[in-house]
């Protein structure tokens, strides 16, 4: 990979600050000209190609492989199997910490899901490796696959999501329901969904003695480095990961997956660099997915439409060999002010790759069910869905009673509804038609996502020439980290963005933590902010303690950093440039480190969430049942907006995902074999351009002094929540048909005409 040359062109407007400017992507020119080096674009000298052979059964074992046939194929160098592979330092089944998930790296011949790796063929060309893998012709001992919600006994997992309690409650739900004037009891189903990042999981692995160089997309490089270190018995500092660009991750690149480790093993086996890239269909299994859910919601209201109880029970599935449980019911913890709330989960085990985090895990699945149920309850009360939500507006977090650190949801409702024209919505369904006779429906949903913080570090420096450096091993998944984090960095050291050398995307830089949980900008940004402040403080020390400086005697608190100068706060005529300060001190570079971390005291005191309101219009053919989204407005309050252009783009992406959730996405699993029958982008439907109308995003101003130093809440996932429910509710409003199985299918809407 050559040195990255990022650009800030076209020139942007500045009004004294980088944060808040809608800069275009600094990596945009590289990407549109094909110069951005993604993992699979690396070709070190002597590199071989590895291709995985996968299981076509979901349960059983491999009893034979025709390794000889594969090896005979011209160009095939070696075939890695459970019997022929480099040893690992630890058993990959051992969970050394809660963020280790089990993977298949040829540790046995057992098969636990379809598409599991059963061998790796290494060859001089991709074609030879591909054909070698096909020649293995595995024979299996097949056991009946466990498929679907009724595959076995359900059980209550110990925790759901990341350490959430399986069951939570406040107040007496049964009493609340018994006392209710009106009740609804409805069950919703969501299907398995796969991340389908545009860039498949890929790795180029190169060993140099006991050093290991990896090009692979990662949302958490230091965590990935730790996993490789323990699996191969290496010191972490011997491992160098480069992950400057990801073609999407959505959670599937948060943990190193089995196939990526197989690439490292293959390189070790053959003693040469190896590239391994998953084929599209191979991404349906070993790299995580969103688990299906079946959610029952029971709601009750009093005579004025106030919730008396909210009971949300979710069933999900996990794999037969590991534990991840989609925390769908927890979506009911934060939004609506019911005096009694209960959420609970249970699960069944099926022959699937372990489900994992997928963009808004739990929040997305839970939101479409909750927002549908709220819509049903509003209808049962004869109330407008927005009026019903306002009637049940949570002034404090319902589940905990904590105040919100900030909550501009009312403004989101108001601004979104005004932009959409919600006030004209008829209460009853099936009331609106367009000129062509199509049914028109309007629906809404409330969006919410927690404002999280993880741990991150950054290193800042000011150089003799007055320019700055900021180093942080952050991750740009396409969301714009190269741009937004550099904006924060530039402000933190009082420099224009083009006077700052922003270094990122490799594992040797300070640990930026995880690009997940919508917390990367906040966490990495806080570390950057703190490192920048620290280096400026050091610089100020140099200047204010030097009697030759015009700032002598000003004291730390008495100067501000702006446009490459320290300026006396009480007398702006007295200032000195960074270069002058360092030159006089005879220092080549001054550096400091900073960290970003959650504030436990604030978290104890406040509930921290981003919020939003999404309004959708669909048109439905009254006889033919085909649905099309025609308008969508989302108003979101997510604290400080670092780069409005990137944020709008993130929210658009989330809203389109919500549309996809409601109308399109579904992995179809054969009920007998457990194989996914639409493991390709032709048949696994996501919206195409023609499905997406012009979208309207409003970012509602919100100042939050508690979430972190910069007041950032994150926007990566919230766009899905609310949106899926808004579309589903619009379909009901258009047709009068309440569909509770997602995605909504044509046949559900073929009502007798």
């Amino acid at each position, binding site marked *: 990979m050559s040195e990255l040359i990022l650009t800030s062109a076209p020139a942007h407007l500045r009004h004294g600050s980088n944060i808040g400017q809608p800069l275009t992507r600094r990596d945009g020119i590289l990407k549109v000209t094909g110069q951005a080096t993604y993992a699979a674009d690396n070709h070190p000298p002597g590199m071989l190609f590895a291709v995985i052979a996968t299981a076509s059964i979901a349960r059983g074992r491999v009893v034979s492989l025709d390794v000889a046939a594969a090896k005979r194929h011209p160009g095939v160098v070696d075939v890695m199997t459970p019997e022929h592979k480099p040893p690992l330092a630890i058993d990959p089944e051992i969970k050394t910490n809660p963020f280790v998930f089990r993977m298949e790296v040829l540790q046995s011949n057992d098969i636990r899901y379809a598409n599991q790796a059963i061998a790796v063929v290494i060859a001089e060309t991709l074609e030879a490796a591909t*054909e070698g893998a096909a020649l293995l012709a595995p024979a299996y001992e097949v056991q009946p696959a466990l498929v679907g919600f009724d595959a076995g006994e359900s059980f209550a997992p110990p925790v759901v999501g990341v350490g959430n309690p399986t069951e939570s409650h406040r107040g007496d739900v049964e009493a609340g329901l018994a006392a209710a004037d009106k009740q609804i009891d409805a069950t919703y189903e969501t299907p398995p969904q796969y991340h389908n990042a545009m860039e498949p999981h890929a790795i180029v692995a190169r060993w140099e003695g006991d050093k290991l160089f990896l090009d692979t997309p990662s949302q958490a490089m230091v965590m990935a480095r730790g996993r490789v270190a323990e699996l191969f018995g290496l010191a972490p500092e011997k491992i160098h990961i480069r992950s400057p660009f990801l073609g999407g991750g959505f959670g599937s690149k948060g943990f190193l997956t089995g196939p990526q480790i197989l690439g490292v093993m293959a390189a070790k086996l053959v003693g040469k660099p190896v590239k391994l890239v998953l084929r599209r269909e191979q991404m349906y299994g070993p790299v995580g997915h969103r688990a299906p859910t079946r959610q029952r919601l029971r709601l009750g209201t009093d005579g004025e439409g106030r919730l008396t109880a909210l009971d949300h029970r979710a069933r999900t599935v996990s794999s037969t060999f590991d534990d991840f449980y989609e925390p769908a019911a927890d979506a009911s913890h934060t939004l609506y002010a019911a005096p009694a709330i209960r959420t609970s989960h249970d699960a069944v085990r099926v022959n699937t790759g372990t489900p994992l985090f997928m963009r808004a895990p739990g929040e997305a699945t839970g939101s479409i069910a909750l927002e549908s149920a709220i819509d049903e309850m509003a209808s049962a009360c004869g109330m407008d869905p927005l009026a019903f939500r306002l009637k049940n507006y949570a002034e404090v977090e319902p589940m905990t009673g904590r105040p919100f650190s900030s909550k501009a949801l009312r403004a989101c409702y108001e601004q979104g509804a005004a932009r959409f024209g919600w006030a004209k919505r008829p209460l009853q369904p099936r009331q609106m038609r367009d000129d062509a006779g199509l049914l028109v429906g309007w629906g809404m949903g409330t969006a919410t996502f927690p404002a999280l913080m993880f741990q991150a570090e950054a290193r800042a420096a000011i150089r003799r020439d007055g320019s700055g450096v900021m180093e942080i091993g952050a991750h740009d998944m396409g969301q714009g980290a190269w741009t937004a984090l550099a904006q924060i960095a530039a402000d933190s050291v009082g420099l224009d963005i083009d006077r700052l050398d922003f270094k990122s995307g490799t594992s040797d830089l300070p640990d930026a933590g995880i690009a997940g949980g919508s917390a990367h900008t906040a966490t990495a940004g806080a570390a950057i902010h703190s490192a920048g402040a620290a280096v400026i403080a050091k610089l100020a020390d140099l200047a204010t303690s030097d009697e030759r400086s015009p700032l002598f005697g000003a004291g730390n608190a008495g100067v501000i950093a702006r446009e490459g100068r320290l300026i006396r706060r009480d007398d702006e005529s007295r200032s000195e440039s960074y270069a002058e300060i360092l030159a006089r001190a005879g220092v080549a570079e001054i550096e400091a480190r900073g960290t970003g971390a959650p504030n436990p005291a604030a978290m104890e005191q406040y509930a921290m969430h981003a919020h939003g309101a999404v309004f959708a219009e669909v048109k439905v053919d009254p006889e033919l049942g*085909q649905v099309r989204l025609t308008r969508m407005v989302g108003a979101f309050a997510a604290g400080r907006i670092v780069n409005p252009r990137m944020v709008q783009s993130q929210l658009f992406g989330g809203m389109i995902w919500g549309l996809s959730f409601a109308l399109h996405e579904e992995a179809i699993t*054969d*009920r007998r074999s457990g*194989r996914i029958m639409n493991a390709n982008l032709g048949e696994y439907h996501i919206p*195409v351009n*023609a*499905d997406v109308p012009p979208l309207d995003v409003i970012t509602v101003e919100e100042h939050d002094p508690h979430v972190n130093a910069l007041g950032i809440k994150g926007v990566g996932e919230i766009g899905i929540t609310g949106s899926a429910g808004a579309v589903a509710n619009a379909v009901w409003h258009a047709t009068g048909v309440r569909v509770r199985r997602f995605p909504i299918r044509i*046949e559900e809407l*073929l009502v007798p005409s």
Partner: protein
Amino acid sequence: MKQFDYVRPATVTEAVAAAAQPGAVFLAAGTNLLDLMKGGVSRPDRLVDVTHLDGLDGIETLADGSLRIGALVRNADLAHDAEFARSYPAVAEALLSGASAQLRNAATVGGNLLQRTRCAYFYDTASRCNKRAPGSGCDARDGENRSHAVLGWSESCIATHPSDFCVPLVALDAIVEIEGRGGRREIALVELHRLPGDAPDRESVLEPGDLIVAVRLPPAARGFAAHARYLKVRERTSYAFAVVSAAAALRIENGRIAEARLALGGVAAKPWRARAAEDVLKGVAPIADAFQKAARRALEGAKPSGDNAFKIELARRIVVRALTLAAAGTPARIPALPASPFASTSGALHV
């Protein structure tokens, strides 16, 4: 991928000879075939590349008023040929409703006719499929089959033919010109594809070496230009195969239907010409009652092959709608969303 020979014949005669060998297949754009080969679904020994053959990419009007379309004409070129779109609007609309712009730019007329089913069990080589591996069984029959056939299926195979293009073509009595070992012959397109019966691997009546060189629309096909539509219900607005589709073409004289043409897509292993429904419409006024009656007739004998009973009712409704749209008259321009129920949505952008 299996090793194969690649030959590029210089003439149609050479192409036919080269493809008559066992295990040989023709390669045109390859928009379907190459995917099948990469997936191990098709494992030919020899590809006979016909893309360089001369004289197969023209669109010409013959002396008798027929239109002859060369087998190598690209879908997009044909659909955007102004004269063609004016004379056979339902065919142009069907072409533009298929696949994506990129695929339409590559895919050929002959290849479209011979594209394979989209049955997932056909593509999944670990599944039993009588079409892919004769005698192995049909895993679709008791599997995930909500999109499968409701007409003309057998216990051996419930797959559908996915083409949009073929649906209005069979309605308009298109003729297929074939060059074979015995020379040139021609058959009606409606006779090209076979129903599965007990040999679903035999998808067409073509013999080894047979090369489709042209598709011809007879002179009478122009007579429907004023009242011809294609309607396709699908699970997203673009880039999806039909759940069910229909082509309807009417010749209306003095307020009555002088002649009707009707065909369905996505319901059977072949584009489904509904002649009995056409008969119902002959000589009657183009009104809803008549269309309802035709729709019932068109789906007579339909039965679910799985979780797909809805397709029968949907097909009836599509027939009624397509006839209604056709009766209302062909629009002056092909709609921005061709063949879509949302075609009339104002402000829609071309896709």
